């Protein structure tokens, strides 16, 4: 009896448990999304059509025009013939644009249009257009799906585009097969140029959205076959885009926040140009918090580097001349920082240098009292004074001293 009872039970059980897999997805069925671009729709035609189809649908404040960049694995193989049929251009990517009230809606809408359903685990970059970022709560709303979805990663990079975001991931770079990877790679060149911000990850954005301070995100612009990642987008503490910083202003900001890992510094000595290759910086903030209505912050910047290019004909091996040169560079840093401060402190009034965070870290009891009066309320940030002191160490002059003689000029 025992065997007659147990055996059918076992068979029934095993056939239920072992035979199938609910979540089996073949790798060919996955549409690996590498980049997402989020725009505001240019026309409201799609919305009208949607309202016509279902007049009772709830009205929303904003709609998103989302472009997904999917990989076509066949196009990645070098020299592969366009044997798959339709892929005659031999492109390795496919951009799909769709419009909807929410990002999730768009993502699911794509499933009706492509054989490979979007899969976000390998998402590299997220580009959000200026218009979305300027709208009220637009930026936070656009980020919510990408943060909440257990499928997406907090390591994807976020960029703000000047102009439509779609055009950023639609560039066709000559050097790479996939635009998203090309953009991602450019973001890693922070050690080459100080005029771009450090990469901002989705996780960092979540941190900033929850923090009481303003923040910056790299700005990106599209040209025909390439993009340019320089400058930065400034967000106020209610997470709305308030403006952009230019390239030099971004460099100044990087000096102020101590986020420079490499780059160049130009200065004029005796009416001729000298250029330094920055190799490292250090920055310390001294705070004087005695007068509540007028906090004084002194940012000390120390910068070291080597001479990269010099049109000025000086004896770079002499001590006095080097001192003069260092002073010229230091002055240039101070000027750049002052320009940046003029914009973010006086015009935009956004604490992107994170001085508030500095108070919070060093003087928590005081911060507890003033935290609502920092950027809002009594506007203590606006009333505070920020001083910049720079010091430059020129470590090396390169392989030569002079490239031509003085008499030659």
């Amino acid at each position, binding site marked *: 009896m025992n065997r007659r009872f147990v055996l059918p039970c076992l068979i029934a059980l095993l056939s239920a448990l072992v035979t199938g897999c609910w979540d089996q997805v073949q790798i060919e069925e996955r549409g690996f999304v590498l980049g997402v671009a989020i725009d505001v729709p240019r026309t409201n035609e799609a919305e009208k059509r949607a309202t016509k189809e279902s007049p009772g649908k709830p009205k929303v404040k904003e709609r998103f025009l989302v472009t997904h960049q999917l990989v076509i694995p066949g196009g990645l193989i070098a020299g592969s013939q366009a044997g798959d049929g339709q892929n005659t251009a031999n492109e390795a990517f496919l951009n799909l644009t769709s419009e909807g009230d929410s990002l999730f809606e768009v993502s699911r809408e794509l499933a009706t249009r492509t054989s490979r359903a979007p899969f976000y685990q390998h998402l590299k970059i997220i580009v959000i257009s200026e218009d979305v970022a300027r709208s009220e709560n637009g930026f936070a709303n656009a980020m919510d799906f990408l943060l909440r979805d257990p499928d997406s990663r907090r390591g994807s990079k976020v960029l703000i585009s000047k102009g439509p975001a779609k055009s950023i991931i639609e560039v066709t770079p000559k050097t790479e097969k996939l635009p998203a990877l090309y953009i991602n790679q450019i973001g890693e060149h922070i050690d080459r140029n100080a005029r771009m911000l450090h990469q901002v990850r989705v996780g960092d954005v979540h*941190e900033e959205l929850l923090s009481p301070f303003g923040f910056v995100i790299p700005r990106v612009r599209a040209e025909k076959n390439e993009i340019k990642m320089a400058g930065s987008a400034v967000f106020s503490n209610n997470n709305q885009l308030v403006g952009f910083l230019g390239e030099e202003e971004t460099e100044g900001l990087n000096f102020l926040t101590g986020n420079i890992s490499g780059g160049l510094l130009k200065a004029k000595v005796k009416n001729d140009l000298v250029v330094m290759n920055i190799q490292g910086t250090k920055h310390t903030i001294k705070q004087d918090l005695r007068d509540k209505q007028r906090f004084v912050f002194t940012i000390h910047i120390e910068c070291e580097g080597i001479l990269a290019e010099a049109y000025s004909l000086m004896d770079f091996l002499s001590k006095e001349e080097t001192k003069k040169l260092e002073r010229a560079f230091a002055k240039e840093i101070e000027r750049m920082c002052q320009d940046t401060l003029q914009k973010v402190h006086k015009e935009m009034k956004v604490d992107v240098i994170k001085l508030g*965070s500095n108070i919070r870290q060093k003087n*928590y009891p005081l911060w507890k009292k003033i935290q609502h009066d920092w950027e809002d309320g009594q506007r203590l940030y606006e009333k505070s004074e920020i001083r910049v002191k720079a010091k430059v160490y020129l470590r090396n002059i390169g392989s030569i001293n002079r490239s031509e003689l003085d008499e030659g000029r």
Partner: protein
Amino acid sequence: MSARTLSDKMLSTNHMGINITSVMIGVGILTFPRALAKETGGIDGWISIVLSGLVAFLIGWLLAKLAARFPRQTFFEYTSQIASKPVGYVLTFLVCVYSMLFVSFEIRAIGNIAKQYLFYNTPVEMITLSFLFVVQYAMAGSRISMLRLNLLFSPVVLVVLFLVLLFTSQLIEFENVRPFFSSDWQSLLNGSQAVGLSYSGFEIILFYTMLMKRPKEGTKAMALGLFIPVVLYLTIYIFVIGVFSAEVVKNLTYPTIDLAKEVEIPGGFFERVESIFFAIWIMTIFDTCMVWFDIAIINLTSMFRNVKKMVWILLLSPIIYFIAMLPQNLVDFFTFADYVTYYGMIIVYLCPILLLVIAVIRGVKGHE
């Protein structure tokens, strides 16, 4: 020869410590940073971790002392001896309920989290059921070999956790960690309570001391068993706060999973390190489930000597499964977890300590 096999079948002190660690590391490791950050609002949560670790050790020490008083007796036997047979029956039965609730909670956690991150279309019921089957299978064998699995798994678990922490260390930002000492005592105590829920598990010493080679060293095993989780929780908490900042941690459902998801191995040839993290985490839950299920069975067999172990396994599984399916959503599930732990505090912390007091006063002692 026979003496040797007997001692082989017993737990050494270190093995007992590892058992305690394996049972303690469970679901709590994923969620405790959120609860702690919510209460303390910063890095100061580490004080809460140490504080509740010390309290846990104090309780654990008392439990170990109680169990060591009756070296070769089961929980049912010594509670009956201390406080009469009816009390023994009731208390042992309540302990069985506690351990069953614990198994239910753990298998449901597996179902929830595996569905959220790994199997999007598989029903929770199915994931939970298949996991329960594996636990049943582990139960069907001998007790000692089951406990040896803890010994086998623990190095793997610790090494993978160490690697995850190593690779996320570059993401730590100092400004997230400061300011130090910003919380008041009240919030630190609340934090200790919050993290205390993740410390439950060391009470297994009450039931396994009878299997130890040297029952007197139960307190030593307790020290080792608690030391590893405290250090682990401390590092995880500091890393989670350093990487995400306190404000973000408060808003992450499972901060530790997100920490594992942050890992990026340079070179880009291996993304999604969290898959390995999930594997080891499921191993730790498996450990926890086995041990709790086994405790339910130890206690039942000690009360009803003529019913076989297999019968209990098959009888309890449907009940455990049914209870596991009761919470309707994530909020229900977390509330369920809290209730189980509070219930456990009375049944396996408070009652045994009272028993110890009575035993000391009355001078009740077990026989070798």
